[in-house]
């Protein structure tokens, strides 16, 4: 936890540094009609650095360093995260419906070890239901791919 706290504080300080840098570029003082664009973000950045330094000092003084995450826990988190990331990449090529069908099917089979019948029913049924709710009922378009084009949508 201590290490994670220190790393987070360092990342936030770096981010605040970027904010201050860009604010100075656009101007932090008084413009022709009031404060410049950089005025508000500049002071936010300054307070942020101060607060993060104090957090880092607090963390540094703490003697215990319990691990941020157990290896087993991290594995189950990554099991959700990397297929989700892969699905988002896939979405750009095959659209949201096909990608989510593959993602749900993969997760249910690989993590849940559900029967193929369940996997197929939910993996295909849910995207089809979503398709009708969003595309035809509420007219909110989702990313579509070759399959939808082939079907005429």
């Amino acid at each position, binding site marked *: *936890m201590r290490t*994670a*706290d220190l790393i*987070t504080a360092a990342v*936030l300080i770096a981010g*605040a540094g*970027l*904010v201050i840098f*860009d*604010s100075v570029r*656009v101007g932090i003082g*008084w*413009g022709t*009609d*009031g*404060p*410049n*664009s*950089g*005025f*508000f*973000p500049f002071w*936010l*950045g300054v307070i*942020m650095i101060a*607060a*993060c330094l*104090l*957090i880092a000092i*607090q963390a540094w003084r703490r003697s215990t360093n319990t691990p941020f995450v157990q290896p087993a*826990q991290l594995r*189950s*988190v990554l099991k*959700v*995260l990397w*297929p*989700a*990331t892969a*699905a*988002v990449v896939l*979405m750009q090529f095959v659209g*949201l419906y096909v990608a*989510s069908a593959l*993602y*749900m099917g993969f*997760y*249910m089979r690989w*993590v*849940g*070890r*559900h029967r193929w019948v*369940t996997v197929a029913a*939910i993996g295909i049924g849910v995207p089809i239901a*979503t398709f009708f709710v*969003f595309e035809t009922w*509420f007219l*909110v*378009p*989702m*990313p579509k791919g070759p399959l939808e084009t082939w079907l005429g949508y």
Partner: protein
Amino acid sequence: MGLENLALGFHHAVTPFNLFVAVVGITLGTIIGVLPGLGGANGVAILLPLTFTMPPTSAIILLTSLYWGALFGGAITSILFNIPGEPWSVATTFDGYPLARQGQSGQALTAAFTSSFVGAFFSIVLITFFAPILAEIALKFGPPEFFAIQLLTFSSFVGLGGGNPLKSLVSILIGFILAAVGLDIVTGQLRMTFGFTDLMKGFDFIVAVIGLFGVGEILLSVEEGLAFHGATTGMNLRVVLDTWKILPRYWRTFVRGSFIGFWMGFKPGGATPASFMSYAFAKRFSRHPERFGKGELEGVVAPETAAHAAGVAAMLPMITLGIPGSPTAAVMLGGLIIWGLQPGPLLFKEKPDFVWGLIASMYTGNILGVIMVLAGVPFFAAILRVPFAILTPLIVVVCAIGAYAVHSSMIDIWYMLIFGVVGYVFKKLDYPLAPLVLALVLGDLAENALRQSLIMSQGSLAIFFTRPIAGAITAVAIFFFALPVITPWWRRLRGLPAAAPAPRET
């Protein structure tokens, strides 16, 4: 003056379509409240895109009904599964789960829903009378007063939010900074885009809510390796009626819980402390304090009454001042802007049919809600028996759809994933997420109020102290900001032991 307006509101809220919308909202809301990883705030965020084509009154009724449903849903998981769906349901588990283990789950659930209803109803009545008065006062507010109120909102997260006050402060700053990214509307300048065209649009808070609360929460719950060991529901009409016969005995607890809830609730982050405070008071004044924690019905009544009174009271500053008291109210405020309404006190003058329709729908929504959850408990509890490996990818997909629908842009789904990881890390490191979201929503408003105030005063910060109303509010805000520094010093002075850290509102 309030009553004919309320009648007008009922005229708008009680149409077949709006009642249908309320029923749909409550059903979805309860499901969302029951599911791990989906709570009121991101449920409302995910459904927001579906309301773009609706008339504003129906749209807000859908979203508020969803919120009531989510509030009710939290009680179901707390009592049957010992899993508090929301932080303000934690106190409900203390006596609710033991009751369920003793086979009294029907009684506990009936008590919880009835208490929620009573607390909510109390707050709605107060809102009906106070909202127009508060809006009338707020009409006289200028930019310095609005900035002072914003300051007060955020100071109460730092001073009263529990947890590490520095981390609350950092969360607020991150929210404000993210809100500032992109085009500055006042000067037309681009800031903090570093040459990336994707950053020009800035960060949408809806995407942030879905990522931080939705995806982040899912990651946390898979890490904990969720397993549901549920008690059976045991609900039927007999149990409901029998419990209703006992409940009037606890009228003192109801009254106390309602007042605590309303008082704590209209300030941000009030629902969780209100529920704990109400529980503590009920225990202290009880003739059998030793029964608390082992399955005392009063221990369910007290926190549920207060939490719902607070949850409803959070709507008061949202309607009257345009400043939300909770992340869910913040998302609704974002909805108002998208539907083309200007949140703030003028809404009472310009759109009375909308405001009073909303207030009237709070009555109908809560009455419908309590009936629906009482009847539907077995159905809602069955949702948690769906295997986790099916629920998890389903929730992730629902989140992705919600994030994409806001602007029809792929980059938002990526932001959602990133916010999800950030939410997971922040939650583990005790950085609160609610102030971040609120700051992201209010960022532009706060910055504009600050700039206009400074223009009025030629750049002097004294304007926040010299105007009487702004000065008083700023003084309270500064007191709250200083509270984490003052409290330990004061305790040492009085020779008291250091306080245990308070539980954190998400």
